[in-house]
C-alpha cells in the first residue's frame, strides 16, 4: 500500500480539482480556489497529525 501521506495528497488532489471545476469558471479564480483547498487539506492534515503526536498510537496493549 502507498504511504499514508501519498494517499492523503492524492485524495486532496482529487477533491480539490473536483470542487474547482464545479464552483469556478475563471482561470484565475480556479487557481486560487484549487490552492486554497489543496494546501488547506494537506497542511491541515499535517497540523492535525502533529497535534496528535502526544497521544498514544493505538489501544492499550496491557500492563507489564
Amino acid at each position: 500500500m502507498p504511504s499514508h501521506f501519498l494517499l492523503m495528497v492524492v485524495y486532496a488532489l482529487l477533491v480539490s480539482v473536483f470542487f474547482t471545476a464545479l464552483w469556478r469558471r475563471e482561470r484565475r479564480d480556479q487557481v486560487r480556489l484549487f490552492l486554497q483547498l489543496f494546501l488547506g487539506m494537506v497542511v491541515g492534515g499535517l497540523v492535525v497529525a502533529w497535534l496528535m503526536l502526544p497521544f498514544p498510537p493505538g489501544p492499550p496493549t496491557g500492563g507489564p
Partner: protein
Amino acid sequence: MSAPERKGASVAEAGSAPRRAWWTAGAAWLVPGLGHLLLGRRARALLFAVLVFGALAIGVALRGPLLFFEGGFIGKLVTLASMGVGLPYFVLRLSGYHGEALAIGFEYGKAFIATAGLMNLLLVLDAWDIASGRKE
C-alpha cells in the same frame, strides 16, 4: 466556457425544463459525467468522469468496502454515499466485490469510495440546476 460546450447547451435547452431536469439528473446519477455530457458540457463531463471513476478505482484497489446497510448508523450513511456513484456501485456489488475487511487499505478505500459517491451526488445536483435553468 468553450464554444462547442455553449452550442451543445443551447441545443439541450430546447426541451421542457422540469422533465429534462429529471432525466438529466437520473442520467448523471447512473453514470458519472453523463449528465453534463447530455447538457453539452463535454470537457467538464470528461473531467468529472475521470475524477469520480478515479476515486472509485483507487478505493477498489485499496480493497475498500462496498457496504449495503451493514453496521450501525455510520455504516448506513456510508452505504448511501457509496450508492451515489450510481451504476458502477451495483455492477461491482453484483460482480461479487465487497472489499476486504483485513486489507491494510480498507479504511482508506472506504473513504475514497464514499467520496466518489458524494462527488457524483453533487454532480447530480449541478446537472439538475443547469438543466432547469438555475445555472449556466
